[in-house]
């Protein structure tokens, strides 16, 4: 194949141990663009609607897409997908590092796991050698410890993904870890691996990736790299990575503090990017083929605890596990980051769940007796360490929180769902949307729950007016098409936002790789098709009008921001409703948030329309029809 694909797809039945090889379906990749798109279609087609996400009928997909590994800036991503145990809908999550390209160098574009293994196993791939091997000796290992041991046992040149004890124990926000600190964190993909008894995947390969026009690709990509070396954002990006944004977010009243009670953190100077670099940095670390090196490999030094090495904290972890937990020392934030990594839990949800538990403790909804004699006070690293251990091993009330804050709030009651900061079961990332209404709408409508990578609008809100919600929905719709495209292409999106590399340039690279003649608009349409399919899938599994699932917790409109530059600001419930109305209209969905026949037909998704019709959830025709183009093009400023 001369189109960026390696050529082979593996299907592995873990119940029987059978491994089958198939030629990669080029047409599927052409139509759905790879990565998230192909995953969305396979999950829609193959997983029964009543399948338990942690049961044998769910499938677990590893997809490297088309562009990953193809000498493309930051072409490093691996996309994982399965029905999310956290949201009970389509789930996908990706990570950088070196695993995806290596899988392609070994000759594989995709691995689809089905069934449940009778015993712990790991998948060993060394070019043509593909074997399920016993993992009993690694079961129970931390994610990072397991990767270290596997490298010792197999060889340093293997690229490895692992899960930790949380994934083994079915903690619903468990992540997949790679390269000693890169995670596919969201939607509980680690829990699905754990349910299948799949502890790790180790890959090594030495083959070439063939592309359509390497000469043009090399010329274009080398040109982009040389051009952007002098970009003004390059230096801060290389120095701080995303930790730069901690202070910026605080200055702009979006940094969550004390479980999203406020957006101003008085001790930000103790946990910001400068502290990370000065106190913790060991080395700058990059993903495969990336010249921005946003990864910061660090150490956490705390008296009385072992010195630990980790990658991060990046912005999201710095926010969700730093200010959001009231931490006053960057080493403490880093230590919690390391704990979550090694236990195998998503640091965004992990931080969110811990913050929720801390507020419950503050309000006396949970007590020392519930916490095995420990307290859970803001800023206490010892308390957090003990709490996370309870959650990862589902000890006592740890089991409640192992289901995420939404499920924990159902157990705790007493109105705690108001401050369980999640949507569709997934915790919010590190931005408070009360004075950034587009960001709030992004969380509300993201197909995998409250995640920033589907649409990030902080600078849009700042430019377009933070008090008003007018016109924001159309921009969110566009961003929900352009941003997930990167997960479909399996490349990193940061250089688009930060170094001004245009979507047109990226699509030009895609065409050099594949020989296609795709336009940006065509790719955006593919992304819209994926978005509508994941929506249909969600409705088919959850059997209620979509609108019911699209509300944030009521803190978002009931409590105004109490301190800092955003003091007194916040959206109203009326504005939340208005944003939803405008959003559905912009998407061609009805007021109930259900896709209409007209939009599904326009996108070639009639089969999904038929399925919605059967269960009575097809959107009613909207007066005046659907917009001819959904979304409004917008280039958000970097920062």
């Amino acid at each position, binding site marked *: 194949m001369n189109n960026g694909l390696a050529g082979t797809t593996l299907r592995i039945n873990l119940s029987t141990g059978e491994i089958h090889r198939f030629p990669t379906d080029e047409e599927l990749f052409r139509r759905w663009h790879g990565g998230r798109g192909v995953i969305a279609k396979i999950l829609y087609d193959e997983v029964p609607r009543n399948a338990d996400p942690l049961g044998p009928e769910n499938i677990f997909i590893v997809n490297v897409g088309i562009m990953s*590994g*193809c*000498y493309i800036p930051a072409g490093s991503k691996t996309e994982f997908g399965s029905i999310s145990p956290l949201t009970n809908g389509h789930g996908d999550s990706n990570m950088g590092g*070196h695993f995806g390209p290596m899988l392609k*160098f070994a000759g594989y574009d995709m691995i689809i796991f089905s069934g449940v293994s009778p015993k712990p196993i790991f998948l060993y791939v060394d070019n043509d050698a593909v074997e399920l091997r016993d993992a009993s000796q690694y079961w129970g290992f931390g994610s*990072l410890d397991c990767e*270290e041991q596997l490298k010792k046992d197999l060889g*340093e040149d293997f690229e490895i993904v692992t899960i930790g004890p949380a994934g083994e124990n079915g903690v619903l926000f468990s992540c997949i870890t790679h*390269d*000693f600190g890169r995670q596919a964190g969201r939607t509980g993909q680690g829990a699905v691996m754990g349910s299948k008894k799949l502890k790790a995947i180790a890959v090594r*390969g*030495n*083959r*070439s*990736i*063939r*592309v359509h026009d*390497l*000469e043009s690709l*090399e010329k274009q990509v*080398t040109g982009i*790299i*040389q051009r952007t*070396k002098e970009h003004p954002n*390059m230096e801060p990006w*290389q120095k701080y990575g995303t930790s730069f944004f901690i202070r910026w977010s605080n200055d702009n009243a979006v940094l969550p503090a004390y479980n999203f009670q406020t957006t101003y953190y008085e001790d930000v100077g103790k946990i910001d990017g400068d502290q990370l670099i000065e106190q913790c940095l*060991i*080395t*700058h*670390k*990059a*993903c*495969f*083929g*990336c*010249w*921005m*090196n946003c*990864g910061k*490999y660090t*150490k956490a030094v705390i008296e009385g605890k072992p010195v630990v*090495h980790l990658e991060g904290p990046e912005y999201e972890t710095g926010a969700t596990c730093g200010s959001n937990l009231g931490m006053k020392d960057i080493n403490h934030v880093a230590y919690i980051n390391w704990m979550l990594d090694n236990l195998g839990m998503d640091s965004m949800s992990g931080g969110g769940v811990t913050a929720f538990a801390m507020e419950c403790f503050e309000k006396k909804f949970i007590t020392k007796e519930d916490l095995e004699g420990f307290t859970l006070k803001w800023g206490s690293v010892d308390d957090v360490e003990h709490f996370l251990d309870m959650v990862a091993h589902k000890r006592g009330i740890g089991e409640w929180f192992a289901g995420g804050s939404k499920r924990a709030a159902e157990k705790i009651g007493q109105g705690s769902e108001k401050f369980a900061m999640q949507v569709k079961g997934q915790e919010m990332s590190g931005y408070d949307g009360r004075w950034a209404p587009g960001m709030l709408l992004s969380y509300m409508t993201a197909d995998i729950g409250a995640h920033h990578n589907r649409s990030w609008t902080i600078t849009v809100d700042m430019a377009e007016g933070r008090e008003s919600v007018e016109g924001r929905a159309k921009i969110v719709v566009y961003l929900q098409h352009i941003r997930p495209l990167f997960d479909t292409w399996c490349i990193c999106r940061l250089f688009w936002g930060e170094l001004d590399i245009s979507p047109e340039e990226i699509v030009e690279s895609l065409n050099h790789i594949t020989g296609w003649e795709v336009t940006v608009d065509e790719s955006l349409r593919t992304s819209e098709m994926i978005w509508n399919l994941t929506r249909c899938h969600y409705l088919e599994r959850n059997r209620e009008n979509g609108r019911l699932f699209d509300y944030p917790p009521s803190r978002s409109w009931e409590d105004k921001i109490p301190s800092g530059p955003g003091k007194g600001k916040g959206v109203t419930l009326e504005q939340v409703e208005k944003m939803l109305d405008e959003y559905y209209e912009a998407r061609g969905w009805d007021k109930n948030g259900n896709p209409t026949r007209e939009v599904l037909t326009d996108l070639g998704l009639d089969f999904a329309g038929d399925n919605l019709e059967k269960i009575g959830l097809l959107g009613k025709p909207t007066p005046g029809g659907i917009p001819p183009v959904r979304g409004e093009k917008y280039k958000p400023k970097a920062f």
Partner: protein
Amino acid sequence: MRIKVNRDNCTGCRLCLQICAIEHFFEINPKKAALRIEAKFPDPGKFRPFVCTQCGKCAEVCPEDAVYQNEAGGYIVDQEKCTNCGDCVVACPVGVICQHPDLGYVIKCDFCMECTRICNTKALVEWKRKPVTAKKEA
């Protein structure tokens, strides 16, 4: 002409490996590169690039005289003469001569300097030595 390594600057991105294989084999395949990156994680958590130092050991041990020195002083493999016996691979003190199952000859740096041009952290830089001048007589 030599490649200077600032090892603490390396971020492990492997762009150098990719451009090396593209330049010499017109393929995307970091396993066909004439340099290597060692990653030591989790402890101490460092990358270390290894590049040819032009020590000449490969020329010394080659039974076919397939390694010659060009005008600029670089040791170059004559792909016609090389039999892929692997003696130089074993002898190379920095481990940057490698073999690949696709090829009937060894892969060795020819000092094209593309790796130094692509590197964004100056972990690899082109180092032009000053011309050696005769010492003044005392």
